[in-house]
């Protein structure tokens, strides 16, 4: 039996995550396999009687919505479940890699690139599949959140995305199988395509033979990038219910990931513009006009100004490339092609589109080498880091100040509207901001950088207003970070209270004591009361 360790001062870091929020817990465990997850959950249920302890599941604690911050009870940290379990070739020729949930993305990438996947203990057929994969073209796992120390289980729990989700879709698209431990310790094994709902009814059979007849909520998810609440659709695949459920329906104990072939040629192009209007118009033209684009990212004037400041302030960012003062904002376009000639043709087309929309062939950086790609990656990642440094400076005078970062998306045809909303309302409120993110998916992280607690409060009011407007545009209040504990109110704005109650009722069917992920998606009282309230 895995140890259930009382919380003490040495373990305080497990009460926090990257959202910079902090919670409380009585105990913590570090299971190493599914059996230990089951044992912990059964133990907690056995000793807890009618009020078993809440269980907050953690991976690498890199989430930004406080999904891994405990709300009392027990912390189940899966970071030690980091083994690679096997590989198979699916009927469609796809390589499917089974991993434990604590495998870290950067490690997975390194092993795939260097062909060093730890395969001790694998079955002979898994070894054969591995040999075959190594003999062929290089493979990679496409989901690319900025934080590469994220673990795969956490990425599935919040349906993580990244820059390349423009082409490859979010995490959901690359999970072919899941094993899930339910709150009572029973297990479910799901493979994509095998268990589907009938309309909005889903029959789910556990490995012990128990069958749940689940009533799925009646809402419709938006036609926009979305990580807000449970994925629900008519005739949906059962696996999609657990992906993006923020650790509220079960504990993911194993994932089967599909691997993709590394494109022969990958070029990144940073394009600089003097106005945001031109940058947005170019974005719309690029995503419609060039098929090989895998990512379109944006950095606004506020973001570039902060980078300029950090670059000259003698920080670690002093090695960033020089930004011309005439450049107001930047659109990063990544091309993935099957040969160099196609990449050149795409680059020429991109150049034409830039020139047609106020850009210039000279005001671009083209990364075709590893060193240049690394420079552009450093540049893109330096933006949020620089903003954090700026906020840290401000916290010296007022420790309560934190940045406010949005994660909202809208459908393609509302990009210009949402940009106008951000600009108009930020100017009205007189708030400093920096925006960056996945403009190809109409999904920007607009960060309000408060200089005082008054501005912080004004920023929060603004976000609430944006949530209403974005929902009105048919968008989502969280596109990739998940809802966690920080965006619950926005989720209510998005779906309305009646649908939140349906979500809570669904949760209660699988987790009657509402132990898992307490406080994520909806208030625990609502989860326990459900549709009776």
């Amino acid at each position, binding site marked *: 039996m895995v140890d259930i360790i009382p919380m003490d001062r040495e373990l305080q870091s497990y009460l926090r995550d990257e959202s910079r929020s902090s919670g409380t817990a009585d105990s913590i465990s570090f299971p190493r396999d599914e059996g230990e997850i089951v044992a912990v959950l059964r133990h907690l249920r056995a000793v807890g009687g009618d009020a078993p302890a809440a269980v907050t599941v953690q991976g690498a604690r890199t989430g930004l919505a406080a999904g891994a911050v405990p709300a009392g009870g027990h912390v189940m940290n899966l970071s030690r479940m980091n083994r690679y379990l096997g590989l198979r070739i699916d009927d469609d020729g796809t390589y499917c890699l089974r991993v434990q949930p604590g495998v870290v993305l950067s490690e997975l990438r390194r092993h795939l690139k260097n062909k060093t996947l730890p395969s001790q203990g694998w079955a002979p057929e898994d070894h054969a599949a591995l040999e075959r994969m190594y003999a062929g073209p290089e493979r990679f796992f496409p989901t690319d959140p900025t934080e590469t120390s994220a673990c795969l289980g956490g990425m599935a729990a919040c349906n993580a995305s990244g820059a390349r989700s423009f082409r490859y879709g979010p995490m959901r698209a690359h999970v072919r199988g899941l094993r899930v431990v339910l709150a009572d310790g029973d297990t479910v094994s799901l493979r994509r395509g095998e268990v589907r709902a009938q309309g909005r009814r889903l029959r789910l059979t556990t490995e012990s033979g128990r069958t749940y007849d689940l009533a799925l909520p009646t809402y419709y998810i938006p036609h926009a990038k979305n990580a807000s609440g449970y994925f629900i659709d008519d005739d949906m695949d059962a696996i999609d219910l657990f992906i993006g459920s923020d650790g509220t329906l079960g504990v993911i104990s194993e994932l089967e990931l599909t691997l993709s072939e590394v494109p022969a040629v990958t070029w990144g*192009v940073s394009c600089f513009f003097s106005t945001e209007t031109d940058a947005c118009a170019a974005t719309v033209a690029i995503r419609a006009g060039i098929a090989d684009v895998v990512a379109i990212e944006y950095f606004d004037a506020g973001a570039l100004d902060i980078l300029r400041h950090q670059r000259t302030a003698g920080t670690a960012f002093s*090695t960033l490339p020089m930004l011309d003062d005439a450049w107001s904002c930047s659109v990063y376009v990544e091309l993935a092609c099957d040969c160099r000639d196609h990449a050149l043709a795409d680059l020429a087309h991109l*150049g034409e589109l830039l020139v047609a929309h106020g850009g210039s*062939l000279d005001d671009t950086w083209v990364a075709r080498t590893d060193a240049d790609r690394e420079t552009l990656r450093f540049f893109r990642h330096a933006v949020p880091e620089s903003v954090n440094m700026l906020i840290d400076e401000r916290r010296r005078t007022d420790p309560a100040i934190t940045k406010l970062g949005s994660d909202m998306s809208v459908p393609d045809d509302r990009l210009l509207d949402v940009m106008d909303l951000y600009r108009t309302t930020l100017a009205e409120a007189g708030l400093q901001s920096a925006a960056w993110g996945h403009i190809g998916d109409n999904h920007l992280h607009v960060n309000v950088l408060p200089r005082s607690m008054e501005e912080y409060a004004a920023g929060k009011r603004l976000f609430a207003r944006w949530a209403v407007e974005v929902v009105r545009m048919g968008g989502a209040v969280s596109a990739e970070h998940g809802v966690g504990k920080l965006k619950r109110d926005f989720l209510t704005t998005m779906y309305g209270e009646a649908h939140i109650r349906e979500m809570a009722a669904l949760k209660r069917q699988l987790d009657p004591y509402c132990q898992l992920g307490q406080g994520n998606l909806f208030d625990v009282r609502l989860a326990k009361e459900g549709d009776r309230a």
Partner: protein
Amino acid sequence: MNIVVCVKAVPSTTEVKMDPKTNTIVRDGRASVVNPFDATALEIALQIKDERTVAGFPTTVIVLSMGIPATQELLRDCIARGADRALLLTDRAFAGADTLATTYALACGLRELGTVDLVLCGKMAVDGDTAQIGPELAGSLEASCITDVRSLVRIDDASVAAWHATDEGTELIETDLPAVLTVSKDVAQLRMPSIAGVFSAERATCETCSAAEVATDPSRIGLAGSPTQVVRSFVPERAASAQVIEGTMDEQAARVAALIEEAVR
């Protein structure tokens, strides 16, 4: 002003692997890159060109390399970043050259390029680490040499002044042109090409010359012209080992304490 930047193609990986049987670098097909020190030298040259161009002084930057034909692609990339011309010395006869034979070939290449006011080199190459090419080239050209330049102070048609690193610190050197400067890696970061630069390079011709075309003395190039003889090369054996200590926090602490006690006994 004509500025020549000498560049070398080196393995792209920083994790160079040695073949334990042959004790040579494993060239596993990974793409080559411009030696990072030479990339910095190119950026310095381009910055000089930018400043002089704005001031109305015509300046040309030429990249020069000795290497296999595939090096042309790297030189073309240098053009994409702003170099005006590229010359590659490529011939089987150049193979096996040490720094002296390489310097001789490069000096012949420089002669082929006509009047040269300034030669810029990386301080050293990441695969050889000799730091000999720049000073040897200066000797061969009978030009002044400033090694390990940390910052360029001034350059005009007749002279150059630069801070360079010494064992004790830094020193300001001023000398007449022509001169050879070698630069440290972190002095500047090579700019990225623009879309315009990429297509300009696609249209450009990378000039190539064989050993005979640069009128070299066959006895001074390649293996024949290399007095350096490698008697033996080997990979140092590593004796370090690691062990994982498991158990409760107290058990782990006790085990660490015991290990320290054993080590200091």
